């Protein structure tokens, strides 16, 4: 807000502050009601560190997968004159509106031991996916991919196509144009999408527990650990939630504003 105006209009400021309060108060509640005196003992449990490490690793790997497959998919969606684009985009958005548990069930039906593809994998290679960390990564990637694809597609569409034309006149083939001109120009969009995807993957519960199950050290991520702790030891649940909250906030705060907004 510039010094010249008298201030933001109340009609905007008030709802903004209410929205902020709505988001921040539950987090504050978590911090205020945390069992600070017993925090050390609660968190010393080796299971906590295991769950945290598993969550961080699987979320990062899932995000990497999302970037690897999501950026080309976003490029495809952004191509002008693509036939059936609305349908394609609707399909990509489905995991966003699907309840995560339903996503987990769907993954089981396809990649489970008796699933459409999973059955073949088991018979041909003896490979089963459920109950492995790989299953956790797949479940997380499934729910996080739409975030990345839609974010990158938006950035690609907003990008100036004329730079690609300029590159073509300089002798760059389509792949070179994508690699050396398009991608660097949408890098902030890719990063923003990756951050969203990572955050979503970190917090995923329903699809993970349905498809990958829950086993400490292998498939029991932080959100699952929190849910189970809530059954018998609510204090431990709060402590674990606090850890997850802290990790998320620190990671997001470290992302400098200028890396994520447009050049």
């Amino acid at each position, binding site marked *: 807000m510039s010094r010249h105006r008298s201030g933001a209009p109340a009609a905007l400021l008030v709802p903004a502050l209410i929205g902020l309060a709505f988001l921040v108060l539950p987090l504050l509640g978590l911090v205020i009601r945390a069992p600070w005196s017993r925090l050390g003992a609660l968190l010393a449990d080796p299971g906590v560190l295991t769950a945290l490490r598993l969550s961080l690793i699987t979320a990062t790997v899932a995000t990497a997968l999302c970037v690897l497959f999501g950026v080309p998919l976003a490029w495809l969606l952004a191509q002008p004159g693509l036939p059936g684009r609305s349908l394609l985009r609707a399909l990509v958005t489905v995991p966003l509106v699907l309840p995560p548990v339903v996503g987990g069930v769907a993954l*089981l039906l396809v990649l*489970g*031991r*008796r699933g459409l593809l999973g059955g073949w994998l088991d018979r041909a290679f003896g490979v*089963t996916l*459920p*109950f492995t960390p790989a299953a956790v990564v797949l479940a997380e990637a499934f729910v996080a991919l739409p975030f990345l694809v839609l974010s990158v597609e938006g950035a690609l569409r907003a990008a100036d196509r004329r730079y690609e034309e300029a590159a073509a006149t300089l002798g760059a083939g389509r792949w070179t144009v994508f690699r050396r001109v398009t991608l660097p120009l949408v890098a902030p969009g890719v990063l923003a999408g990756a951050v969203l995807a990572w955050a979503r993957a970190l917090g995923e519960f329903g699809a993970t*527990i349905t498809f*990958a*199950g*829950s*086993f*400490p050290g*292998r*498939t*029991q991520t932080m959100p699952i650990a929190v*849910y*189970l702790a*809530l*059954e*018998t030891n*609510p204090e431990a649940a709060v402590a674990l939630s606090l850890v997850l909250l802290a990790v998320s906030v620190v990671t997001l705060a470290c992302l400098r504003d200028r890396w994520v907004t447009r050049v």
Partner: protein
Amino acid sequence: MKRVIATLSAAALLVAGCGGSSTGGAMENAAARKVTGQVVVFAAASLKESFTRIGTEFEAAHPGTTVTFNFGASSTLARNITQGAPADVFAAASPATMKTVTSAGEADGEPAVFVRNQLQIVVPRGNPAKVTGLADFARADLKIALCAKQVPCGAAAERAFAAAGVVPKPDTFEQDVKATLTKVVLGEVDAALVYRTDVRAAGDKVIGVDFPEAAKAINDYPIVALKSAPNAAAAGAFVAFVQSAKGQATLAKAGFAAP
């Protein structure tokens, strides 16, 4: 004034219930005429099929009532009740989970054990891994599902394994017994430990395998009407019905053992 009457009737019914089923019948008939409206019952996941049937029978016996169920892990339901979820009756799969509710002062009187449940090994149709007893649960080559220790079925499983001296190698700890059973039905795991009643409910989709140590890990299922029940009269009537001859017959048919 209404609450006082409700509380007194509930107390009377409970006394009748504790005293045995013989006097319960007469009390029931007297109460039947006053019971109406919706009854919300929170019950352990393993009670799903039997309680649903009991619900229909209760509605037939008390025209004008509707029984609504919320099935889930006993520990989750107990937590919901202590956090204020509106319910009339709570039926848990273990005394431990019932304790969560009673120590929070939510129970209306003392809980009564109305059935007992025994664990049984469950395997997918055809028993592809040729599982014969608890010892197979230590095989690393099998995919095994168990209930998480925090839920009653998991706690019972722990007791059974301890009694058998077997160290299981599970691949997943599920949050409630139905989720555990589903993994078997889908063929994702080779064996799991669930209640006999769940095995019976799954019909021919699965096969149940008995094991001797099951007798060492029996779960008592307590039931109680809740203090802040919106429909206290019906709550008490339902609790009584579950303990009546008719209710007990339905439960026995599902595989539960008498208390």
